[in-house]
């Protein structure tokens, strides 16, 4: 694949990612928002694959597009949906509050595109880098320790939350 088609396909994927992000924000029902978020994750996964990051892409696909979507859908199904009347009122209010977002995104996109701000990006010479496993296990062991602690803290937090709720009933 030549660089031109690589660039164009990346731009298409990124445009879809921004589009689905906006859709996830402005769409009416929470279920559609959660599904829009899952699509954003899938598109980000494709972008990651194209930017030579396959391992992180697999994590993103399995965890973010899969697990987090399940968490959101479970949470949505445990809450009470709006009645038809409430939905009509909410829709009117939503249109009033959210129609600015596409406008802001278009204006900001055009502004940023033409501004070409100099962020001081200097492209370094290519280097031979170690594999992800080596970087993660040998180069950043503190990160791995932090991940384990965060997972334990998360499990503890969820257990405490649901335990309190059971007692609360």
């Amino acid at each position, binding site marked *: 694949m030549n660089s*031109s088609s690589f*660039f164009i396909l*990346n731009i298409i994927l*990124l*445009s879809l*990612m921004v589009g689905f*992000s*906006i859709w*996830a*924000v402005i769409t009416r029902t*929470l279920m559609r*928002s*959660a599904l829009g*978020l899952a699509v*954003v*994750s899938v598109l*980000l996964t494709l*972008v*990651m694959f194209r*930017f*030579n*990051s396959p*391992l*992180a892409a697999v*994590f993103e696909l399995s*965890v*973010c597009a899969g*697990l987090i979507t399940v968490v*959101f859908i479970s*949470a949505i199904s*445990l*809450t*009470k949906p709006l009645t038809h009347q409430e939905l009509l009122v909410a829709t009117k209010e939503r249109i009033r509050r959210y129609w600015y*977002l596409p406008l802001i*995104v278009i204006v*900001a*996109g055009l502004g940023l595109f033409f501004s*070409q701000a100099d*962020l001081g*990006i200097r*492209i*370094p*010479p290519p280097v031979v*880098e170690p594999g*992800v496993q*080596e*970087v*993660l296990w040998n*180069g*950043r062991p503190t*990160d791995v320790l932090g*991940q384990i602690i*965060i997972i334990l803290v*998360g499990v503890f*937090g*969820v257990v405490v*939350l649901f335990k*309190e*709720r059971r007692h*609360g009933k």
Partner: protein
Amino acid sequence: MANDPVQLYWIYAVFGFLTLIAGFYCILISRNLLRVLIGIEILIKSVTFFLILAGYIGGKTSLAQGVVITLIIIEVVVIAVAAGIVLGVFQLNDSLDARKLKNLKG
């Protein structure tokens, strides 16, 4: 197509900034707590994209992937705990509306 690589990466970065704007707007405007969580998720997607892009530009994709894996794990834990808190709030108030959270009001 942009020929200068820096200009090319700037165009990619613009899409990251736009996703960031969508996430911030969602957090600022939404009153539904679950939708606020979705806004946080969109923000994290944007940050993930910036990390991957930075790794790609700098030729250090392994390091970027290591950081992104850590970020994803933090993201899952934050969302799982936050969803639990939101469900607790729903059971207490019978609503997900942030305006009805007045129990902590001083």
